[in-house]
């Protein structure tokens, strides 16, 4: 027990690369050189195999599927986030999403480290295939759904920036608008002036609002069915282990809350007056709910599930 397990060493290497990547993404906000963003992305790609290896070695050390306690679970979700980020940045050229993605990845791994549990046996209730399917789905869905909130936050920021520019341009103070190439670009003019103006100007480096909105929706589209499936598998496990598929246990209740929040989102998407700003705010509530589910419920509210701590 005195030696650091290999899994934890690998975990540390991954975190170090992620932190370096995050610094890179921060630098990229004011200094918009493609090479900086690519370097940061490269650091994430470098961290990824260490992260994966950490999870795999942990599974071997502990002798079970590595989602059996809150350390393993947090590490798992952060892995889903890092992976998803790599995929969308490679396939769709999204770089700035690296800022929230890395903040959350590092944050989760920090929490994982603080709640570290040495590899060991599981309590009897956790020996189940249904449970394995359940926790894997929940971790995957959590990692995917957070991206809908990231994009929604970007969407809100971009909308605000657009609105600000529109207002100042409308006031006739002469923001320069240049159209060129395939798309359109706006060059910050004297228009807004002051810190607000420059903030609004830098927000306009984000992709267009409609693109951000559709990315946000896309992640609900992927994450919501996985979450739904995960909750159902939890019910099947509950039926097998305890003889009840639902019992309003705090953990179950919170997973239901998250589910309803995203169901509201899907309804809001097709309801006038709700589809843009409010829909985006709903996914942000969803983000809060996911993490309340993960940490508040596990650490402060007791229930059948609370052995996840041990």
């Amino acid at each position, binding site marked *: 027990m005195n030696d650091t397990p290999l899994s934890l060493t690998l975990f540390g290497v991954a975190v170090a690369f992620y932190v370096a990547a995050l610094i890179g993404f921060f630098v990229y906000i004011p200094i918009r050189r493609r090479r900086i963003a690519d370097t940061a992305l490269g650091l994430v790609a470098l961290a990824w195999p260490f992260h994966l290896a950490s999870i795999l070695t942990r599974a071997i050390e502990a002798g079970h599927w590595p989602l059996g306690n809150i350390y393993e679970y947090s590490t798992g979700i952060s892995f889903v986030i890092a992976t998803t980020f790599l995929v969308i940045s490679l396939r769709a050229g999204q770089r700035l999403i690296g800022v929230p993605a890395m903040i959350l990845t590092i944050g989760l791994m920090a929490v994982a480290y603080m709640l570290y549990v040495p590899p060991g046996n599981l309590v009897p209730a956790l020996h189940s295939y249904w449970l394995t399917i359940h926790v894997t789905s929940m971790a995957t869905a959590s990692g995917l759904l957070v991206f809908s909130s990231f994009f929604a936050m970007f969407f809100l920021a971009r909308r605000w920036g657009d609105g600000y520019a529109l207002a100042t341009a409308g006031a006739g103070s002469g923001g320069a608008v240049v159209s060129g190439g395939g798309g359109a670009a706006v060059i910050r003019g004297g228009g807004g002036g002051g810190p607000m103006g420059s903030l609004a100007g830098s927000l306009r480096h984000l992709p267009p609002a409609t693109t951000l909105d559709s990315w946000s929706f896309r992640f609900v589209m992927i994450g919501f069915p996985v979450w739904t499936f995960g909750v159902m598998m939890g019910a099947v496990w509950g039926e097998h282990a305890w*003889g009840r598929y639902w019992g309003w246990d705090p953990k179950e209740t919170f997973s239901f809350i998250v589910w309803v929040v995203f169901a509201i989102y899907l309804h809001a998407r097709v*309801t006038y007056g709700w589809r843009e700003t409010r829909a985006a705010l709903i996914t942000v509530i969803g983000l809060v709910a996911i993490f309340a589910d993960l940490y508040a419920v596990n650490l402060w509210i007791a229930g059948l599930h609370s052995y996840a701590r041990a």
Partner: protein
Amino acid sequence: MATATAPPQRARRPPAPPPRRPPRLRAWLGRFWHQYTRMRTAIYFLIGILCIVLIGTFVPQEFTSASQKVSEFAAAHQNLDDLATHLGLPLTSVFVSPLFYILLASLYIALLSCVLTRGRALIVRTLRGYPRTPQYWGEWGSWMFHTSFFLLVVAVVWGKATGFDGIMTITEGQRVAETQASYDTLQEGMLFDGHHSGYEVQLNRFSAPLQSNGMPSDFVSNMTVYDGGRPVLTQDVRVNEYLGYHGVDFYQQDYGWAPHMVVRNPAGEVVSDTAIQMISDDKTASTGVLKVPAFNYTLPGQSKPTQIGAKLVLYPDAQALPQVSGASNGLNFSYAPGTAAARNPVLEVQLFVGDLGLDSGASQDVFTLDTGGMTPYYSGAAAFALPLHQTTTLGLPAASGGTANFTVSFPDLRQFSLFHVKQDNGVPLVYAAFVLTMTGLLTKLYLRPFLERRRRMRKAILHPVGVAASPPGEPPPRGVGEEVLTR
């Protein structure tokens, strides 16, 4: 209520029947119904449900939290709770509160109207052979998804109503019939036909091997089912492995110690020979009660035979604490709990003599001893220690002025298992509802976009120029910000 007011759009017929209601009311109801069945309303209902459920996670709930926490909360927030209860939302039982059910019912009524109208429209479209657009499949998906919630409710309600749910404790070596009388607690559904299956289950062995950290690595009940007196099934029951036979399922839920005690009265007759189920939070110290109503010995000067009872504490791994005084009759040792393993089982017995109060009907509870009509055997109700495999001889006054000896022994230590036992025929239907939910959701969210993309690609191949303008999966620009500025 739902069927009385037809949706306004369908009032296409000429004004033949005279309106039964004043037209104003009718129009008002029509408008109400229209508003009520809008998606926006569904959003508000969902938000309402969300709020109630949120309360349910933070306030201890009667059915899921420790009862002590619930009463603590009730005591600390008396006024708030009273107010909420008046509003139909008792805070410590929100999941069964009137307000919660009203909200759910409202949502379901709106959902029903939506599912019926859209289902009818879909069937009409199918029957008339309209083209199968991606939109069409998407609507089927959405319809299946929403309909699955009805299936779910039917499954839950029907399963609970026609089944039962109870707790049964069985000691090692004991054979118990699946009948009403065998349960510690039992809740039968409203439509349960009252027929329990009647077969017997026997707990052959229980084991809970401990890890080095003192936690059990597993807990396992080896059980045999006897149907018509013949053994038909033997299996291990553990947390993730239940025993199911004839629609009744046994789930391992808890376990405890059951010391076997034998009492002989002064005449040497065995007047009590039982394994006593003990309760405990952790298994290192448990408490229980011994009652011997038919002790069959009358104390001098009394008209009725006396009874004896005892409060018991069991330490499976007792750690002796020697006390100051030097006498060594066992009275001067008291014990502290050790581990949960049966390494040195000792019972501490606090004996009482007198009337158990069973006739009054007040104290039938097997876990409490009513000592109102009894006197402690030792002054100060001191306990004596009774290690495993030992017998203690105790005296009572005899008619001759001498002593009548009786014995209490502890020949072996058994364990009992506590099972959650239930019959719920709705479970397969619940799973069917799950499958329908997933099928609908995947159809809506994936099949439709997939078909749309395929269609777009076909079009793009046929007419390479016309379609490229709007990127896949994205709605056309909505005219905000950049787009407006540039145009």
